[in-house]
């Protein structure tokens, strides 16, 4: 790591438009990336990590975010002073970028070969045949199967992981000195994420590229970083070699973030012997089929799922996207009707009840949804949202409000939140409100559908503690749906692993984590980023 850095950012400041909660998106940020080095910028939402990356590429929205101070030296050249023409020449040749959403970052109406080729057409004088050979070559090097055939494929015909590979191919085809990766694996499943991380690391080592890697996930940092830059509210809090920052953070904020990462090692938990609160027998949900003119494929979103949750117990359903975990949750909540099977709630089978007869049972199962920004009606006060359910079941407004006030206190909010509107609260606070709303119904079963996935890691830890606490306090049966193994390890008594609609493994959490039986479970565990690092052990 000697010599001149590939990227040298010196006290960069980027101004926010007026009316924002702070003056600058990024303030006095200094960092550097050397050849053959991966530097991770890590921070929670709003830390300014993405703004920093976009500033380097010169892709900030014009007139809204304006760099007001500092230098951004790309191989010694200040890109902040570069003309638009010069900046375009540098992009794709000396610096390149890949983005968070592989699903939308590729143009849907152009073939993928064409989109990699575009870089060559812009920046080189090569003839069509040479270009095609070069494209096929780079597509092979990112380990895409059958590049000749994929050359003419459209983005919708390949998977998310493959799209991200294509993005990487287009970024690296001209061997830039700097690759900026903005949360490139956040939208991907954990097994795909592991493959993409390995690919980036491998290509970077072989080509000697300097990589600036933006992420919020310390697991990913542990997996890939040579050096780490921690950002908070637009400022650099701490930076240094990855090992040092992760093992011996000097700043309290860094320490807090690292400690908040849930451990992959479950605490030993005693088996719960309470009465079964909800149980499914042969639960299946099949989509598609039918249609007179259309030939639809049928999808078995959930296939013969048997589960039982006892009072006082948290059952985790873990799986990647498309595994059917959310389908199972929505069936049990009867937001959708299962195709077959039974859902036993005490003695009643609610699997096929029509809405009118279902209503009395609604109270017993409550859901906390994933997206805290959409699960509260923005036009209604928090109070109105909480008391809606209890009043449907005959509670007077006064009693319902009393209950709402005490529940808000219980979830750690001030009771005066009742008269306020959802937009006045942060994501974590809204999730607390959603929990209070669920508890107001005095349910037997609480379904948490990816309830902490949209939250920053520090907030996530608090909400997890809250869920664990209320489970004990109200003797709830909790069905916890998540894609995140770390979260599952921390909160679940038992784990079910689902793959393509089928339950592949089922058992006590520590057994599933320590002695997985099914190969898919093993693959999931192996793919968990930062596995070798042992986060959360110290806590």
């Amino acid at each position, binding site marked *: 790591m000697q010599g001149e850095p590939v990227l040298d950012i010196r006290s960069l400041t980027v101004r926010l438009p007026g009316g924002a909660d702070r003056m600058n998106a990024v303030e006095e940020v200094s960092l550097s990336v050397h050849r053959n080095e991966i530097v991770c910028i890590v921070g929670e939402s709003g830390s300014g990590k993405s703004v920093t990356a976009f500033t380097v*590429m010169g*892709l900030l929205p014009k007139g809204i975010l304006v760099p007001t101070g500092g230098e951004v030296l790309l191989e010694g050249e200040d890109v902040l002073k570069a003309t638009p023409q010069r*900046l*375009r*020449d*540098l*992009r*794709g*040749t000396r610096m*390149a*970028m890949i*983005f968070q*959403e592989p699903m*939308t*970052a*590729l*143009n*849907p*109406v*152009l073939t993928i070969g064409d989109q990699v080729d*575009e*870089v060559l057409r*812009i*920046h080189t004088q090569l003839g069509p045949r040479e270009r095609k050979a070069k494209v096929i070559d780079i597509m092979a090097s990112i380990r895409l199967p059958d590049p000749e055939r994929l050359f003419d494929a*459209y983005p*919708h015909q390949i998977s998310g992981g493959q799209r991200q590979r294509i*993005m990487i191919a*287009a*970024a690296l085809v001209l061997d830039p000195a700097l690759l900026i990766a903005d949360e490139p694996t956040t939208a991907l499943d954990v097994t795909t994420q592991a493959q993409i991380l390995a690919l980036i690391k491998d290509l970077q080592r072989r080509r000697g590229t300097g990589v600036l890697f933006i992420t919020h996930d310390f697991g990913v940092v542990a997996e890939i970083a040579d050096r780490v830059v921690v950002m908070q509210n637009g400022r650099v809090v701490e930076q240094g070699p990855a090992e040092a920052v992760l093992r011996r953070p000097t700043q309290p904020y860094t320490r807090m973030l690292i400690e908040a990462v849930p451990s992959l090692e479950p605490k030993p938990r005693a088996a719960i012997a309470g009465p079964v609160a909800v149980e499914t027998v042969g639960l299946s949900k099949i989509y598609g089929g039918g249609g007179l*003119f259309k030939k639809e494929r049928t999808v078995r979103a959930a296939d013969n799922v048997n589960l039982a949750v006892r009072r006082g117990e948290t059952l985790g359903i873990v799986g990647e996207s498309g595994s059917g975990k959310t389908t199972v949750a929505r069936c049990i909540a009867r937001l959708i009707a299962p195709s077959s099977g039974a859902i036993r709630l005490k003695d009643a089978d609610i699997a096929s009840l029509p809405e009118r007869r279902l209503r009395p049972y609604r109270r017993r199962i409550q859901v906390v949804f994933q997206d805290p920004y959409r699960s509260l009606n923005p036009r209604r006060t928090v109070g109105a949202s909480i008391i809606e359910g209890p009043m449907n079941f005959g509670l007077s407004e006064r009693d319902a409000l009393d209950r709402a006030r005490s529940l808000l206190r219980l979830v750690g909010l001030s009771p005066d939140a009742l008269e306020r509107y959802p937009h006045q609260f942060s994501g974590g606070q809204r999730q607390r409100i959603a929990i209070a709303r669920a508890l107001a119904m005095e349910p037997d079963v609480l379904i948490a559908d990816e309830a902490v996935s949209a939250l920053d890691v520090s907030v996530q830890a608090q909400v997890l503690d809250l869920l664990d606490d209320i489970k004990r306090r109200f003797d709830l049966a909790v069905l916890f749906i998540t894609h995140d193994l770390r979260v599952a390890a921390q909160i679940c008594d038992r784990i079910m692993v689902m793959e393509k609609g089928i339950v592949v493994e089922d058992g006590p959490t520590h057994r599933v984590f320590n002695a997985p039986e099914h190969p898919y479970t093993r693959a999931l565990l192996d793919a968990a980023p930062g596995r070798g690092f042992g986060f959360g052990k110290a806590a």
Partner: protein
Amino acid sequence: MLSYILRRLVATVPVMLIVAVLVFLMLRLTPGDPAAIIAGDNANTEQVALIRTRLGLDQPIFVQFFIWLGNILRGDFGESFFFKKTVAELILGRLEPTLSLALFTIVIAVAVAVPLGVLAAYKQGTWIDRIVMGFSVMGFSVPVFVIGYGLIYLFAIKLNWVPVQGYQPLAQGFGGFIHRLILPSVTLAVIYIALIARMTRASVLEVLGEDYIRTARAKGQVEIKILFRHALKNAAVPIVTVIGLGIALLIGGVVVTESVYTIPGLGRLTVDAVLARDYPTIQAVILLFSLVYVLINLAVDLLYTLLDPRIRY
């Protein structure tokens, strides 16, 4: 592909059937004897009786419907007592002017509107954008006949460049044909241009906010290529859609424009038929225009598969 086209053609049958039912019921819901209404005011009792037996008016209403529908499917739209011709003859004779006017209008509108819309989107927020958008709102607001008379006043009466009104068939020479067609086409094109330019601008703007546009910038692509290679191709589907849906507006405009310019086309026929309460003709014209509208939008749907690889057949 062929089976897809066939399937889509079959899918238009229910829609047209509903249109047929509506058109059929329209006449039955008017108070009075349908036979007498169809025959018109000048008919004698024998003619009325003839119509009654021909349409099976003494039979239950759904039998009447199928008799009526059967006749239409055989190309028999009945007889116009007002024009003293069969409706089919009447319509065939009026087809050329309307078709010429509509096609010429579409060509003008698309050629003007799409570039205008792209330009406005590219120059979003500048005075060029504001002028295009201002023109678009005006185009929606000024009625076709006011535009028509305004243009006649300026170009025919004051400047004397073109004839005031009338139509010359293509068979009598292309020069005179186009000379008389240009003003009505421009008149009719105004609202269509307003519609298409607006949609083009909106969809190009929407596409310009997409992630893959950012990707193209990150590759170092120049703005003009981003606009045409990446943006316009993605914006094509909504633009083509609105061109198809705009046909409804165009058909309405044809009726008015032909009246303003005294062009002997289907639009003029529609108005004359309504004024004369010539119901068989009204029914036939509505069915015909609706069928054209539905088929054009079917063609637009089929076009999607060419424009967007994600839409499969």
